[in-house]
């Protein structure tokens, strides 16, 4: 996938002006936030489970090499194979080899963000195979030649009218005059079209929410059942996963499962939680004959032991995205790569470089909601700040910004001068604003005032007001004590 993160500002600007997108984005707040809150409140142990989840993942990361070895042993013992891939190119080659050996023509796919990371569809097409996304959202964006705009709701940026237009454009074997006014009709149409693909597929590729070291199982969590048809009907099931998905035991999956659906969609439990272990057994009437797990590192191992290690606890629930005011405003595509929102702002610079993705950790209001709701208690704001620091240290941010920071630093280190200048600035701005109390144009901040007015300072500077309040509080305090 072409990285457009460097043009984040332009992307965001375009997104703000996109009427369809703005309409569709209203569904994010409406669809996720209240439901999560309700589901979390309905389970008294939810907050304690978050602590357990965090500790569990920390334990796994500290013993990651050993759990991966244990997982591999169990996969092999149950008749499957583990393929290790350091880079996206390695993972693509492994998958292409398996598909070629089986003479695959149609390859069905369950939802996998890692397959986006390695541009798997493009490469399968290049070697003459037909990858078919089977998650409804993924299918819709595949028809449009787009990429997911959300890690669990890939087509959340679209209105149902846009989806209807795509179905009409692509499903030309159906009556052009059919009614596609309701989402339920489109769901039925996609079900029929994709059912044929499931039945002819030669290879099925899924991601994994968890890998279980105890049993060599891979686990997927879905609501549609597409991941299950993808892995059960073809001759081979390929699982594409990254190393940090491993957990020790089945009981550990329980802990994370209780956090995942509640945080993601506000469900008590997703509809299908599927444990897959090895290929079909002797006497089994269905299931794949081959079972392959492709373990892709792509930079994860290098995050261990750094200030970004905690990001590896992420279970990809998407809650940070659902609660992010920046995401609500611009949607996922503006972020310019696979992972949007706060988790993407931390992960993308790690995987593609801060030189390309430095804008992302800056696109934050630092409201802290993401950390407040993260089921794995990942300190996302702290890590975004760490990226900002690195960006500054490597002089990657623009000269004007650096100059501005230098000016601010000069005053900040001289507190008396800082207060004095602030007082003058407040007075000047108040005068400048006049009776309206708002400033329509500010020199050096024209971009900011071009779309909004700057409210004039009211009263003294923050520090003056703070001091006055403290004094008043102290006075009341001694008054009461007396």
């Amino acid at each position: 996938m072409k990285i457009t993160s460097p043009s984040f500002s332009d992307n965001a600007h375009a997104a703000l002006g996109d009427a369809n997108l703005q309409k569709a984005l209203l569904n994010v707040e409406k669809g996720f936030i209240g439901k999560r809150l309700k589901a979390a409140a309905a389970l008294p142990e939810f907050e304690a489970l978050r602590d357990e989840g965090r500790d569990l993942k920390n334990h796994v990361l500290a013993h990651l090499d050993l759990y991966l070895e244990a997982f591999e042993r169990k996969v092999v013992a149950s008749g499957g194979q583990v393929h290790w891939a350091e880079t996206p190119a390695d993972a693509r080659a492994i998958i292409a080899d398996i598909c070629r050996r089986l003479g695959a023509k149609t390859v069905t796919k369950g939802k996998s963000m890692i397959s986006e990371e390695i541009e798997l569809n493009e490469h399968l097409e290049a070697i003459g195979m037909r990858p078919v996304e089977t998650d409804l959202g993924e299918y819709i964006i595949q028809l449009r030649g787009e990429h997911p705009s959300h890690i669990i709701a890939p087509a959340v940026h679209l209105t149902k009218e846009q989806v209807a237009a795509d179905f009409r454009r692509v499903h030309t074997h159906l009556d052009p005059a059919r009614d596609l006014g309701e989402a339920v009709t489109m769901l039925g149409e996609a079900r029929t079209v994709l059912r044929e693909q499931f039945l002819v597929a030669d290879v099925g590729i899924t991601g994994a929410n968890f890998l279980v070291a105890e049993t060599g199982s891979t686990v997927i969590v879905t609501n549609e059942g597409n991941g299950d048809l993808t892995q059960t009907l073809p001759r081979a099931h390929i699982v594409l996963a990254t190393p940090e998905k491993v957990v020790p035991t089945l009981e550990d999956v329980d802990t994370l499962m209780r956090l995942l659906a509640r945080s993601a969609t506000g469900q008590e439990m997703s509809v299908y939680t599927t444990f897959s272990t090895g290929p079909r057994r002797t006497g089994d009437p269905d299931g794949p004959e081959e079972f392959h797990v492709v373990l892709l590192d792509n930079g994860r191992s290098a995050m261990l032991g750094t200030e970004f290690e905690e990001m590896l606890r992420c279970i990809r629930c998407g809650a940070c995205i659902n609660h992010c005011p920046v995401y609500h405003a611009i949607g996922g595509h503006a972020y310019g790569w696979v992972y949007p929102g706060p988790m993407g702002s931390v992960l993308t610079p790690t995987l593609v470089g801060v030189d390309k993705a430095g804008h992302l950790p800056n696109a934050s209001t630092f409201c802290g909601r993401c950390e407040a709701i993260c089921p794995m208690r990942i300190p996302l704001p702290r890590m975004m700040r760490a990226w900002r620091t690195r960006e500054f240290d490597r002089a990657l941010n623009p000269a004007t910004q650096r100059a501005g920071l230098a000016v601010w630093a000069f005053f900040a280190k001289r507190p008396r001068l800082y207060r004095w200048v602030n007082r003058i600035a407040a007075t000047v701005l108040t005068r400048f604003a006049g009776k309206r109390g708002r400033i329509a144009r500010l020199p050096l901040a024209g971009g900011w005032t071009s779309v909004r007015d700057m409210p004039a300072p009211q009263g003294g500077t923050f520090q003056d007001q703070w001091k006055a309040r403290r004094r008043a509080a102290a006075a009341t305090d001694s008054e009461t004590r007396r």
Partner: protein
Amino acid sequence: MTARDAILAKIRRSLKVGGADDGDRRAAVAERLRVHAPGLVPARGHLPARARVDLFVTMAEAVSSTVTRVASADAVPAAIADYLRSHNLPQAIRRGADPRLAALPFADQPQLTVEVGASRGGDPVGLSHALAGVAESGTVVLTSGADNPTTLNFLPEHHLVVVRASEVVADYETVWTQVRGTWGEGQMPRNVNLITGPSRSGDIEQTILLGAHGPRSLHLIVVDDLEPTDS
């Protein structure tokens, strides 16, 4: 150096491990895998048997499963025939070789055709027997194999699942104890499916609709095999 060794070496380098303390780390991992201790288990499902079954039914209905409770296994074929009639479906189902399903008195419903084996996509209704029900979330647990082929869980539009009341457990942890008892420590059948309601999607404008790729309806037939003395 293979990719495997390279990745493991990178992990060890980043973690600054692999030296003398490695024995302790290995012991800690082996112990955790051997003991597989439950973590924090929510109290919700921990109820006396009858109340646990009631919770299971409540939770299942909350996720749009439908439920029929019957007094004994002998009443299952009639419950199936009723379901098919009330949904205007042909009197035909497909099931696996599970002896508990094979023992049902299907002869009581002469109009009902029962085929046996995996589905290839042409069956409107599949019948399975659950390994267990989980009260905590109204989930049914199905395991792959000739007894209950996995295709029956996903291809038919209607999925009927028989659950014994005595096999409705409080939590997933109890299910794993049962799975280990049947398949052995560290062993699993090809698939263990935890199914919580019928298939659904919210991918168009975040409106939840039932019947995406899997069954449009999940109908649970709960057989009351609890002892009269069970509270």
